[in-house]
């Protein structure tokens, strides 16, 4: 992300300190996570202490300061998915990818995370890959899904 791109995002919210969450979300939408250098720049440009920005970046689940892979897998661990075997899907993915929740595969292809309900409870268990929701999954089906992502 270039300095001018960062400026554009900050300008979008008129540099308002109260809009810092939105600024961080927009940066993350582009970078997939929040790189330290960019946060430093945001801090300077908005006059918000870096410590506060880090506090927000670690407080909100949607934000990540760890680099992520090309594809983000979010396993839904809402209640409806849980009773229909959501954690089994998670375990299966952890074993298959050889990583645990929150980690990224060595080839930087997949990042495995969990999400607290995406509101598709009727279709549980559900997994979201790069923003696309896949429902009615089984341990088998979910592995088949991954093969479509390069």
């Amino acid at each position, binding site marked *: 992300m270039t300095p001018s791109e960062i400026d554009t995002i900050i300008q979008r919210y008129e540099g*308002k*300190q*109260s*809009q*810092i*969450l*939105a600024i961080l*979300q927009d940066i993350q939408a582009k970078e997939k996570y929040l790189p330290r250098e960019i946060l430093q720049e945001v801090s300077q440009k908005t006059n*918000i202490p870096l410590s506060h920005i880090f*506090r*927000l970046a670690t*407080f*909100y*689940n*949607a*934000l990540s300061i760890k680099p992520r892979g090309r594809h983000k897998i979010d396993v839904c*661990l*809402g*209640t*409806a998915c*849980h*009773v*229909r075997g959501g954690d*089994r899907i998670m*375990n*299966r993915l952890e*074993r*298959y990818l050889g990583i645990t929740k929150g980690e990224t595969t060595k080839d930087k292809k997949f990042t495995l995370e969990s*999400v*607290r*309900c*995406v*509101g*598709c*409870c*009727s*279709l*549980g268990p*559900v997994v979201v890959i790069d*923003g*696309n*929701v*896949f*429902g*009615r999954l*089984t*341990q*088998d089906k979910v592995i088949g899904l991954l093969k479509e992502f390069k």
Partner: protein
Amino acid sequence: MRIQSKEDLEKLRNKGLKNLFPMKIKISVGMATCGLSTGAGKVYEAINKEVEKGKLPIIVNQTGCIGFCQKEPLVDIFEQRKPRIFYQGVTPERASELIYQWLDHKIVRDLLFFKMESEDWVVEGKKWDYNIECLPNGIDGTPYYHQVPFYNKQLKIALRNCGYINPDHIEEYIARGGYFSLFKALFEMKPEEIIEEIKQSGLRGRGGAGFPTGNKWESCRKSKGSKKFVLCNADEGDPGAYMDRSILEGDPHSVIEGMIIGAYAIGAQEGFIYVRDEYPLAIQKLKIAIQQAQEYGLLGENILGSGFSFNINLFRGGGAFVCGESTALMASIEGKAGEPRAKHIHTTESGLMDKPSNLNNVETWNNVPVILSRGSDWYSKIGTERSKGTKVFSVVGKVNNTGLVEVPMGITLREIVYDIGGGIPGGKKFKAVQTGGPSGGCIPESLLDLPVDFDRLTEVGSMMGSGGMIVMDESTCMVDVAKYFMNFLKDESCGKCTTCREGTKRMHEILTEISEGRGKPEHIQLLEELGWVTAEASLCALGGTAPNPVLSTIRYFRQEYEEHILNKRCPAKVCRPLLRYRILPEVCTMCGRCAKVCPEKAISGKTKTKKERGIPFKIDEQKCIKCGMCFDTCKFEAIEVD
């Protein structure tokens, strides 16, 4: 174009009516998130392609969710003088069949779900009749909408427009009576009268706690200060509840209209909708709706020429459950971490940016236009003595019919689970229904005849919450459910109060011990004690209600806890460390499927073929990780779990 008068609004209504009921055939695809995740997007494309290819006189339309998520993708066809018909489970491959059969006055029998002869317009208390004159061939015997058991007992107020209108077209919302209540409020009622009407209606906050809405508005109106805010809580964090998502995706204007009316009654100039970042489609629909409302002069300066000015900002949440709490939500909008504060001073006096602020949930705002239009007398006749109106529940989990269900308050749990939900799949036994999300509890079978309202649910140790209703059967372990919620809460506790931060963590630890076979008899009492302290000594409702999942399961399912602790057994066969998988050699057909799916290669044996006799399969317990893949795969019930 800015709407200046009631005539302008009527003009738009006529435009909307032409959209809703065109002279051409109209095919609508339900494209809310639940529909999209089952392939509604591809179905929409396929129908579009087919129509373009054949240059057919058909309008292809998008709509929200009509509630029966399990049957998605849902497609409906409207044509003048014919019944409106709904297809279920449509796939792109069948798009052309669907279209051409209809053009041929026929229907696709195996996909047909129900037909409709009229639709209810609840805002004005009218029925829109389709004036059926001809029936497509083969439609006899198909149930009408009200005959489908899932819809039979429902009364749709909050979900009035979901699945009927295109949420991107404000005219369609207006056509079904939308924004007429705003007109009434601004030109025919004083702010105090509106508040009185809401008070009389008995509307209580749909976000969970059930605080009387009118009283909240009144205290915010009476608070001193020239600048005031109204806020909409769309941070639907309760896992298992998604009615707010559905309303925002299918009928965003209903919330906006409610907020404008509320702002006028309270005297607020600015509004915020705090919406979950996990709901990208809802955000998109809201953006469009807000922009349209601004263009038509329904938001902004001098609304409809009344002299009243109000605007709405959209704020995306950051994925923190605690931000559903009013003070945490406001802190979040101010650009701080979403931590609650003590409420010695109510937010209606000093909330967002220390200004008087009135926060209501999506469903609450959405009810407001209907109440103003139909009157509090009508509204307060629905429901129970102290809980008026309807409530939307998401009936999910181990139940046959899953989806969004809107019922009058006071209906029993049994009616919801069995009559609407169609009972438990696979002939299994009902065990409990969980309401209220992480703040609620599990209600056992003995209380199934409980009338559902705010107070009765609280009496039995659960709560209404935002309306999640997760049905559990005999294969759901109650210790595991309690552990699940404690895990959720320990992660989501903001950490401000020691009791909540540590209490949820310790409770989770103890429950983990129990579920892994290290439970001790004194653990149950310890859990009860910890629960009590957490509830009493935490600042906000997250901590205050956090022990409910533990306490309610101990209260109603103590035996199951004891089974785990004393006999090291999980009766529901869920807690993995307590399980043992075994293949019954006399039942094993030697098909070898289990060995194929076993990720640890822990199953050995020899597949039976025409030439070879085969050896029954066996699980190596040392290697078994108890993932349950073999159990799920075996078609012959040859695998036993202890």
